[in-house]
């Protein structure tokens, strides 16, 4: 076991999540309870048809003080941030703003704006004057917007490791607290839909033409989505749940295919348990990565069964939100947290008829119960795996 242990973890003293299901935690929880998907035909101009999970609101421009950083990413981040901004302000007063760090995950950053600027350049030979690479495209722009909005004055950066980004941001946040480098950390992530990821996953033939159907016998690819999730971790305090562990590993196998035996996935899940000093029997629920692609779901199912057996209830929430890529891990950590707080696991949308080779206990209908410890997986390009373990408030 590593020395980085604190069995009871750190309290999550505030959180907010927004995506295709709604702009606030309350709306998201309601859609999950009703089994209502946010996936719709994708409005982007693409050389193929697909569904996606677009952020629902008409997004207002950012406030004048942040106008130079305006982007769809910034607008989504700021809308969702409303749900946790009060908690961050309290943390800044309690610990001193310079002791409140910000570590966020994103895979797309503001590349949607860069794509628009490139299109304008391709059409008329000039990059629009309003486009600023550092304030729209660069990952650091997300940090800058969140820092300026919340007043958090501690160290801060972005973790970007494709679909594990915001889970690894939670891992980094936990280490900053363990090392005494901060007393509170605002963590999470944000991503937007864009041509780069829609066409990129399309080129890998990993996108379904319909709403994705994780673990279904008829699954044929994933659906992408956009949104943000933020979690505030503090050294101590009261909140709805605790971050018990964040396991991180590499497959060391292939840039875009998971290890066929799920070796890296298992390492990440085991590491999360080891940090909490818990065995697999302590976990009441797993929110799977479950993208809906043929190979990934089968490999992940095997890895979960190998570690937890066939009795732990599992869900993939990709059928609700789509795959949020860089924001997926923090989003699904927040959805797992909702299972602890609200006492239900949502139905795994689109899973029937279940793939007969998948021997998971997949929740085909909403399942009420007390969920004390929940695990959420995210696996990424480059063989990057992260597994986030949350527990109920002590």
């Amino acid at each position, binding site marked *: 076991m590593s020395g980085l242990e604190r069995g009871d973890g750190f309290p999550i003293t505030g959180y907010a999540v927004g995506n295709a299901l709604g702009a606030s935690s309350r709306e998201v929880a309601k859609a999950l309870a009703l089994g209502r998907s946010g996936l719709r035909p994708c409005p982007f101009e693409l050389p193929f048809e697909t569904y996606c999970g677009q952020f629902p609101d008409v997004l207002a421009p950012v406030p004048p003080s942040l106008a130079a950083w305006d982007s769809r990413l910034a607008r989504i981040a700021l809308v969702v941030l409303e749900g946790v901004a009060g908690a961050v302000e309290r943390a800044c007063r309690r610990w001193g703003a310079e002791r409140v760090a910000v570590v966020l995950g994103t895979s797309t950053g503001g590349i949607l704006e860069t794509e628009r600027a490139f299109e304008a350049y391709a059409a008329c030979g*000039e990059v629009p004057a309003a486009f600023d690479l550092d304030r729209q495209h660069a990952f650091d722009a997300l*940090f800058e917007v969140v820092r300026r909005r919340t007043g958090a004055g501690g*160290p801060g950066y972005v973790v970007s490791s494709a679909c594990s980004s915001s889970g690894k941001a939670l891992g980094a946040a936990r280490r900053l607290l363990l090392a005494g480098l901060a007393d509170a950390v605002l963590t999470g992530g944000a991503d937007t839909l864009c041509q780069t990821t829609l066409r990129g996953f399309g080129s890998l033939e990993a996108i379904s033409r319909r709403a994705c159907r994780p673990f279904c016998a008829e699954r044929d690819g994933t659906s992408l989505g956009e949104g943000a999730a933020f979690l505030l971790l503090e050294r101590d305090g009261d909140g709805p749940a605790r971050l018990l562990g964040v396991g991180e590993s590499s497959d060391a196998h292939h840039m875009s295919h998971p290890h066929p035996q799920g070796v890296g996935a298992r390492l990440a899940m085991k590491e999360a348990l080891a940090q909490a000093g818990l065995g697999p029997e302590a976990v009441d629920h797993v929110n799977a990565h479950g993208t809906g692609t043929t190979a990934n779901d089968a490999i992940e199912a095997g890895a979960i069964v190998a570690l937890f057996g066939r009795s732990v209830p599992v869900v993939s929430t990709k059928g609700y939100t789509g795959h949020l890529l860089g924001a997926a891990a923090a989003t699904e950590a927040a959805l797992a947290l909702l299972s602890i707080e609200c006492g239900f696991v949502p139905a795994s949308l689109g899973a029937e008829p279940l793939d007969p080779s998948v021997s998971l206990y997949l929740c085909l209908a909403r399942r009420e119960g007390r969920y004390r410890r929940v695990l959420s997986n995210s696996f990424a390009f480059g063989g990057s795996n992260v597994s986030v373990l949350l527990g109920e408030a002590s």
Partner: protein
Amino acid sequence: MSAAVHVSGVGFWSPGFRDAAAWLAGARDPSVAIAPAEILPPMLRRRASALARMAAEVAVQATREEAAGLSRAPLVLGSAYGEIGAAVEMMREFQTDGGMPSPTRFHNSVHNAAVGYLSIATGNRGFATAVAAGARTTAMALLEAMALLEARREVVLVLADEPIPPPFASDPPYPAAAVAFRLTASPVCSTRSRLTGLRPGRADADPFLGVMAAHPCAGACALLGAVARGDAGSVSLGGPVGSAWIVDVAPVST
């Protein structure tokens, strides 16, 4: 704001300069155009981006004293713009017939591509991450490494950025460059310097940097110079006015 860590190996690569010694001596060799990255098997090397190749090259240089290091050490990549070359090339592909990008270019466009390639080449199933923080990238990647070293024996820290491609090129332009540090929690035989006191602040800019002063990883170049010369004092790691970072460096004789 943190405990001491030890610099126990360094690496450098930039077009014209094959390693730290060549760069520090100002010995430009025009034949050095693409990082050899011999640790990547030929099939991976052909697919890897220029950034992934230079990151692999400097990581190997920094761990030369400890050959097994790369197969087990946690890997931290800091890069302000990451694989922006692949990202812009994909945008060009969207404008062509069919409008679909190369799948290899797509997986190469992720920020963690370089550490992904390196972990595959070395069989490293442990920790690897990729971070970005604009002009503060060197300082924040060092912070991530220092937090890891609370519980780990060593970390391989790589800072790398390539020039921003047209039509988004930066002014002033800067060359591609990658710097690596093998950091250890305790001093080892190959330890050259000790780093303490990573904190917000500003120190005098290093006049040695030249064109590298405009590089997003200028702070890493300055730190490399200070370690190589055996300097004692504060090194400016970079950052915008009002939120720049410094670290104290001191030589260690072993």
